[in-house]
């Protein structure tokens, strides 16, 4: 074993060093890019700044992910191909050791090289980033968990690469199908919430691929002749690949064939407060009708108004999604920046971030790239946690962070920020709400109220015109100095109606409030929950209100496209996908779609059964494959087709029926195969030991 490992290490060291070099280069470039950004910050607009790679350790993940996948696959493929394409394979296999030992020799060496090539540059990069004065952004070790998972999942590509090199299949693409497992696990990250979910998928995928490779060593890449676990694993390893190929094909076909009928209708409000239904079709021109269905006509031309014209008439809309839960904003751990910290704003000499761990704004000097202190409700402190007081900052505000630079809140109070002077000022407190403004019909116990979300409104690029503050009871509009312009009842909107939009109409005194149901609530109600619209005037309060029916809803009813696509997807996958969530809920399983993919699976059943008969599978194999088609549908059938090595069929000399050549006897009549025909030139002699 040691000899094998050493040989593999020597043989593939060059490749590992090459990989190490490339990754070092990638990471060095991202460090360089980071430095360039910090130097040229003045030239980048405020809204663009939000999305800059503020923490290079975290923002390089996608590149690292691509590198790990490609490097892993190449390394694995090369380790096999090196011996396989010449006849070194025979030299390697024909030694007095087990196939298992040869497998482990290769894998242990391969993984060592993988760790070397990815680990060294990453450790260097982390060390660089951790030295104070290099990265002006918050860091905590948990930020590296996604990177760790990405590096770990590269090993799946490694095994998939090995399997590709090893497999004997009629065409090369079907050899590479094992990559599907690795892709599947990688894509799962996007919907995973917990670390254990990621580890679980890597473990399962790794076991399947590694076992398939191990089995391949026994049969030199064929399905036949593998030990049973190897055959099972190979089947499992190819199935996701087919799943991908099929789903992509189905999506492409649906796009190509059904796209022309695709359209989407939504409500839009113009600056005069009128509501129109806008249907976006194929072309540039949208179909714009009022709620009665009458087309909106341009008064000058008398024809339907142009889309561009209409878009100029549409009012400004500010969205806010309140969150009243007490937990600290957690978010998806895989969701990088917003999870750990959010870039807030850059002053000429300081970068400010909201750091969820401490609930405070933390500042870093741009020139020295060192931490300077934190800002909390109590003011500025030299330490990162100050006196422990925290702001509340819902993660959903992240998307609007660019517009939320001047205001922040706690549970009770809204603060104006003066980052230039490292100071905060309370401008509005629930318990001390000024009653000077017109209050609207609602009663509430102010003491129980908490602020679930605020939004800063800038109608013109750099002004601060209003602040929207949402509590369970009310939605308020404040002036920048904290005066309440109006407040409208929100109760009992939460939690079903969690999507609030404030429309700013032409007259500065007029507004409209849109309340939309959450996707989940709408799903439960079967799309029956209406949108609520209220027109407000600053002086007169509510002018009128209306309910609008949901125009499109994809909660429980599925489009034809989705149904068609689900024909190509494994029933098992359809059931499983919704369960990979923060809180897996059985009712999230789209049973309607599952039914469609089950129909496809049922169609596969007789086809597969017939093929099994044709190639005379044993009864257990028949039943096993039948169960496989039922669970995995069309991808299952295709997997069956691609793992089996279809033996040729010949006519039986006895019963004249076609029979497979890889059985000793005819499966129909039990006759032997005919010996080769004599041609009269045979010379056979009984050979004895010489001497």
């Amino acid at each position: 074993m040691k000899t094998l490992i050493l040989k593999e290490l020597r043989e593939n060291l060059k490749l590992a060093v090459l990989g190490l070099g490339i990754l070092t280069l990638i990471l060095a470039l991202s460090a360089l890019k980071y430095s360039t950004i910090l130097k040229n910050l003045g030239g980048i607009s405020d809204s663009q700044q939000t999305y800059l790679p503020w923490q290079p350790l975290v923002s390089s993940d996608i590149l690292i992910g691509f590198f790990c996948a490609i490097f892993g696959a190449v390394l694995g493929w090369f380790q096999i191909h090196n011996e396989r394409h010449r006849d070194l394979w025979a030299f390697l296999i024909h030694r007095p050791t087990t196939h298992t030992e040869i497998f482990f020799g290769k894998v242990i060496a391969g993984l060592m090289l993988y760790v070397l090539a990815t680990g060294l540059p990453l450790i260097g990069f982390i060390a660089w980033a951790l030295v104070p004065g290099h990265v002006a952004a918050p860091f905590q070790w948990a930020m590296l968990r996604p990177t760790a998972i990405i590096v770990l999942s590269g090993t799946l590509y490694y095994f998939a690469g090995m399997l590709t090199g090893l497999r004997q299949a009629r065409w090369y693409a079907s050899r590479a199908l094992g990559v599907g497992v690795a892709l599947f696990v990688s894509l799962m990250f996007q919907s995973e919430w917990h670390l254990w979910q990621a580890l679980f998928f890597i473990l399962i995928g790794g076991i399947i691929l590694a076992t398939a490779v191990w089995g391949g060593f026994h049969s030199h890449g064929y399905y036949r002749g593998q030990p049973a676990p190897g055959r099972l694993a190979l089947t499992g390893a190819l199935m996701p690949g087919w799943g991908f190929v099929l789903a992509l094909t189905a999506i492409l076909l649906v796009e190509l064939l059904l796209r022309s009928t695709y359209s989407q209708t939504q409500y839009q409000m113009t600056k005069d407060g009128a509501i129109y239904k806008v249907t976006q079709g194929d072309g540039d021109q949208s179909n714009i009708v009022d709620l009665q269905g009458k087309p909106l006509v341009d008064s000058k031309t008398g024809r339907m108004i142009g889309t561009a014209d209409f878009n100029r008439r549409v009012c400004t809309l500010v969205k806010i999604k309140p969150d009243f839960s007490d937990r600290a904003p957690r978010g998806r751990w895989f969701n990088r920046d917003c999870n750990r910290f959010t870039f807030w704003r850059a002053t000429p000499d300081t970068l400010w971030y909201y750091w969820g761990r401490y609930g405070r704004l933390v500042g870093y000097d741009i020139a020295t790239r060192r931490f300077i202190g934190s800002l909390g409700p109590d003011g500025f402190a030299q330490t990162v946690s100050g006196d422990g007081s925290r702001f509340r900052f819902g993660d959903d505000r992240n998307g609007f962070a660019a517009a939320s630079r001047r205001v922040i809140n706690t549970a009770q109070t809204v603060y104006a920020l003066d980052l230039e002077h490292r100071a905060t000022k309370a401008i509005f407190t629930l318990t001390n709400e000024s009653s000077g403004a017109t209050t609207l019909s609602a009663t509430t116990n102010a003491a129980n109220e908490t602020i679930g979300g605020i939004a800063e409104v800038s109608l013109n690029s750099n002004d601060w015109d209003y602040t929207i503050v949402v509590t369970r009871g009310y939605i308020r509009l404040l002036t920048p100095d904290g005066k309440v312009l109006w407040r409208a009842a929100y109760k009992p909107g939460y939690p079903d109606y969690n999507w609030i939009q404030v429309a700013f109409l032409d007259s500065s005194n007029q507004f409209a409030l849109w309340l939309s149901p959450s996707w989940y609530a709408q799903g439960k109600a079967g799309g029956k929950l209406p949108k609520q619209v209220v027109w407000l005037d600053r002086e007169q309060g509510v002018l009128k209100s209306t309910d609008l029916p949901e125009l499109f809803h994809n909660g429980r009813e599925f489009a034809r496209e989705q149904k068609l696509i689900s024909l190509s997807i494994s029933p098992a996958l359809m059931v499983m996908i919704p369960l990979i969530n923060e809180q897996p809920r059985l009712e999230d399983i789209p049973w309607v779609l599952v039914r469609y993919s089950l129909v496809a699976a049922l169609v596969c059943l007789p086809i597969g059964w017939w093929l099994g008969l044709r190639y005379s599978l044993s009864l257990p194999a028949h039943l096993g494959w039948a169960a496989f088609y039922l669970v995995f549908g069309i991808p299952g059938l295709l997997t069956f087709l691609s793992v089996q090595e279809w033996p040729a069929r010949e006519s039986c000399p006895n019963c004249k029926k076609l029979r497979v050549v890889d059985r000793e006897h005819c499966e129909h009549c039990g006759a032997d195969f005919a010996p080769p025909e004599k041609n009269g030139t045979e010379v056979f002699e009984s050979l004895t030991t010489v001497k």
Partner: protein
Amino acid sequence: MNEQPVIRTQGLTRYFGAKPAVYDLNLEVPRGCVFAFLGRNGSGKTTTIRMLLGLLQPTRGEGSILGHDIRSLPPEARARIGYLTEEHQLYDWMRVKECGGFQSQFYPRWNEKIFRGVIGHFNLKPTARVKDLSRGERAGLCLGLTLAPEPELLVLDDPAMGLDPVAHRSLMESMVYLTRRSDRTIFFSSHQLADVERVADYIAILDRSVLRMCCSLETFRNSVQQVRLRFPGPPPPLPDIPGLLQAFRAEGELRLTCVHYGATTEKALRALAPAQMEMVPLSLEDAFISYLGERGEKSFILSETEAQP
């Protein structure tokens, strides 16, 4: 001594697609012999060898090597079998002595003296890199790696292919040297009839996937015979002659190559009333070529007879 054959196959068959590469092979290789496995390119020799060593699954049939099922060769069996692959491939980046070091780790019975002897015989520097070796030198190194574990059974897949005469002679010397111990068996495939003539005790011939001959070298030479018939005029048309391989027709002369030449054949030929009839001794190569070449009648004067309507 163990009387069990070192290699035994029964109905061993391998298909590639719909085409059989080896069909219903029944072979027994006795212990202690030098066994030549012959046939034209693509007749299934390499396929057979790869099946025997468990590198290729048989489509059907069975086989055993040193008493072990070829479908599941245990490491102990592999330790007793030396296998020289067809292309003499080795790790390019290794040095000659590293190859030895690598190989020796796997074999408890590794004999460094033999390894040194063989690579010395082929004039190989221990520090030379494999990628700089010539084809013949690589073959020598492979041979050293194969012989040093002192295998009981040596399987050589076309060992002479691509060797220059000097390396070729070294190879033959090594093979002869190996017969010193009478319990060693050598099973080799080859196209070099000269090698077969020098070293083989037995030969087996695969003709288009089917084993047609398996006997001692002497039997083969005696079985394929050429007879020359002379006629005063143009030779008469040929009757059906059993075992006829090839017939050459020349002016006043008929030369026939037959397998199983015997009394029946002779009687059939005498009936043609030749003026003279004599046996022509054949070289091994000629016999082999007649045996595997195209069957039927050829004529040296074909063009002349066609010219006369």
